[in-house]
């Protein structure tokens, strides 16, 4: 059995780390530590009802769990197989408890693409990413495609930026590839400053490996060997997880010199933002990274 506990910022702030510790302790006390795996995941997207605890394989979705509820979950659910009804999500319309996320209205209409791994894998373990096919796209690009083909594929995919402008990604890459320069950089804009915005954080915290992989693919396509992530210093957890992912990727030869045995090399560094909203704008962001004032230019 697997117990997935949300370790995202939302749930962390409502004490999910204590919940994780309690699970470890109580499972040990019952001699179940080998049978039940406890995994700290990224955000499930349901922070409003956090902390979230999910039990697999029966897909039980517990909401607003408190550290002192852990004993009951272990004793009732894990040992005896009886769900703890009070902790299940309650459908606000008919006041009925819903036991698994599949039947919750909130999740019913969702198809997760970018966030497919969030709340599913352990973001601090690259192997779980690899088990879900992580880095295979990069491997494919490096071994079977030329940079031009990668760009063509990107254009054909129709992928666009998710900011207001919706700039076509393939076109952006093509322009960068054509530009001649001694050193090119891939910049990942992880400066999420809009009031209330909390989604870059989800992916950074919940699935950092997909960011690393995507940046490397972009680097290959445009001929850059260095990547920079501009990230808010107010996102300590996202920073930690990203660092872990980068280090693990290096260890596995998925980042650094001669990635996957090819002659392509690429590495990533982090740059911290001081939390100025305007620094999410491209030119301001670049100024800021090179140590100038974060003001936009034309």
């Amino acid at each position: 059995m697997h117990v997935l506990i949300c370790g995202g910022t939302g749930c962390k702030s409502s004490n999910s780390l204590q919940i994780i510790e309690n699970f470890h302790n109580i499972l040990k006390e019952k001699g179940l530590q080998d049978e039940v795996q406890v995994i700290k995941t990224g955000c499930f997207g349901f922070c409003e009802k956090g902390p979230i605890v999910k039990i697999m394989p029966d897909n039980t979705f517990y909401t607003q769990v408190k550290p002192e509820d852990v004993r009951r979950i272990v004793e009732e659910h894990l040992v005896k197989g009886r769900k703890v009804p009070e902790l299940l999500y309650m459908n606000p319309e008919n006041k009925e408890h819903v036991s698994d996320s599949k039947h919750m209205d909130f999740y019913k209409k969702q198809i997760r693409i970018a966030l497919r791994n969030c709340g599913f894998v352990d973001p601090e373990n690259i192997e779980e990413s690899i088990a879900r096919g992580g880095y295979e796209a990069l491997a494919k690009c490096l071994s079977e495609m030329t940079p031009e083909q990668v760009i063509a594929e990107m254009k054909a995919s129709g992928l666009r930026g998710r900011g207001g402008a919706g700039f076509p990604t393939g076109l952006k890459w093509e322009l960068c590839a054509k530009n001649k320069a001694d050193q090119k950089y891939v910049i990942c804009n992880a400066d999420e400053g809009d009031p209330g915005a909390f989604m870059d954080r989800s992916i950074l915290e919940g699935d950092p490996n997909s960011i690393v992989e995507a940046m490397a693919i972009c680097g290959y396509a445009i001929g850059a060997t260095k990547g920079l992530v501009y990230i808010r210093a107010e996102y300590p957890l996202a920073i930690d997880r990203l660092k872990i992912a980068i280090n693990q990727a290096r260890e596995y030869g998925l980042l650094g010199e001669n990635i996957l045995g090819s002659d392509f090399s690429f590495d990533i560094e982090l740059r911290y933002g001081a939390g100025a909203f305007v620094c999410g704008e491209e030119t301001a962001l670049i100024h800021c990274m090179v140590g100038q004032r974060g003001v936009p230019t034309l």
Partner: protein
Amino acid sequence: MTKVKSLADLKAMREKLQSTLDVREKAENPESLVQIKVAMATCGIAAGAKQVMEHMMNKASELGIAAVFTQTGCMGYCHAEPTLEVRVPGKDPIVFGHVDNNRADEILTKYVQNGELVEGIIPVNYETIDK
């Protein structure tokens, strides 16, 4: 850690690692899999349901059967413990009683894989309300 050297290496690695996520992967889509519910109330546990379940889980993965195992509470057949319910996709669930390791193997190889009935079936006298 030795570095991954090629796409083929990476794929081989994925294959090896995939099973660690099996439990979670399957939970996303339980309807398409064989579901086995093991009665694990006091008397089930006392009769050895836990060992049988463990044995059966190993056997299932050995045979390559994609199955989800869950524990349930009392099914009301204390006289026939350990009991378990097997639901093969598209078929009605069947409850088996007095399941020991041998019978567990039989259930997997004969019933689940080949659709043959094996001994120990308890006529189902309940219905579940589907959500």
